[in-house]
């Protein structure tokens, strides 16, 4: 009881209480801070836009960032192993598989596609200027641990199976994307 009336002791215990309250608050603030992470929605399956997203992904890795790429709708074409038309697919799914690119190698450009000549010309121009190729950028991103997530809802809509996509892809929905995006310093929609 004597301690309570000791002014020095009362000050110390008040300070201790304050410090522990501040520590708890600091912990809460730290937990809500964004991570050194970049999240991208790759909506487009255009060769030039996928190229841009992979340049940024590799660049972010070099800057010490973690990267998450959420591939949805046309962007899923970039992850395909090839064109797969299954006999049990319905007519629209077959048409979709035939009319969309079957992987990185067959993406078309957003402009100057010229019935497929555009990508050939772009590839040549990029190679001539020693710009790293799309497959190399993709491989580098994978090796660097870039997290790649396929949107399950658009896969279902477009008739794309998990086995149609390259190995090592994660699958999820909007909450999985947002789980990373809301903790990221930067988010891009491509």
């Amino acid at each position, binding site marked *: 009881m004597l301690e309570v009336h000791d002014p020095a002791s009362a000050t110390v215990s008040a300070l201790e209480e304050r410090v522990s309250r501040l520590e708890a608050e600091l912990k809460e603030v730290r937990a809500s801070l964004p991570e050194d992470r970049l999240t991208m929605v790759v909506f487009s399956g255009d060769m030039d836009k996928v190229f841009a997203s992979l340049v940024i992904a590799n660049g972010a890795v070099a800057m010490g960032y973690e990267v998450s790429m959420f591939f949805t709708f046309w962007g899923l074409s970039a992850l395909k192993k090839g064109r797969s038309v299954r006999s049990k697919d319905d007519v629209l799914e077959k048409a979709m598989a035939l009319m969309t690119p079957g992987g990185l190698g067959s993406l078309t450009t957003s402009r100057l596609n010229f019935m497929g000549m555009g990508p050939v010309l772009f590839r040549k121009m990029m190679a001539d200027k020693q710009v790293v190729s799309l497959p190399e950028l993709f491989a580098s991103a994978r090796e660097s641990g870039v997290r790649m997530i396929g*949107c*399950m*809802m658009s896969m*279902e809509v477009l008739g794309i199976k998990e086995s149609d996509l390259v190995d090592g892809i*994660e*699958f*999820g*929905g*909007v*909450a*999985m994307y*947002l*789980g*990373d995006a*809301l903790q990221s310093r930067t988010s891009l929609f491509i």
Partner: protein
Amino acid sequence: MQESIDRELDAKGLKCPMPVMKLRTAMNEMEPGQVIKVETTDRGSVPDFAAWAKRTGNTILSQSEESGVFSFLVKKGE
């Protein structure tokens, strides 16, 4: 130990983003510590519920699958 279930939610047949939205609406009407049982048929709800729970401070106590139906027990956070 068997958790008591305070509420049930049938989200079968719904696709992303509806299962997460239905779950959030139901949880808003619950008290911290209460448990909801959710059933879905969307395979995407498995990673999505995990990401959602992590973000919102709720806990997935258990999850299981039986003939295409995913069952989750989710406990509301404080």
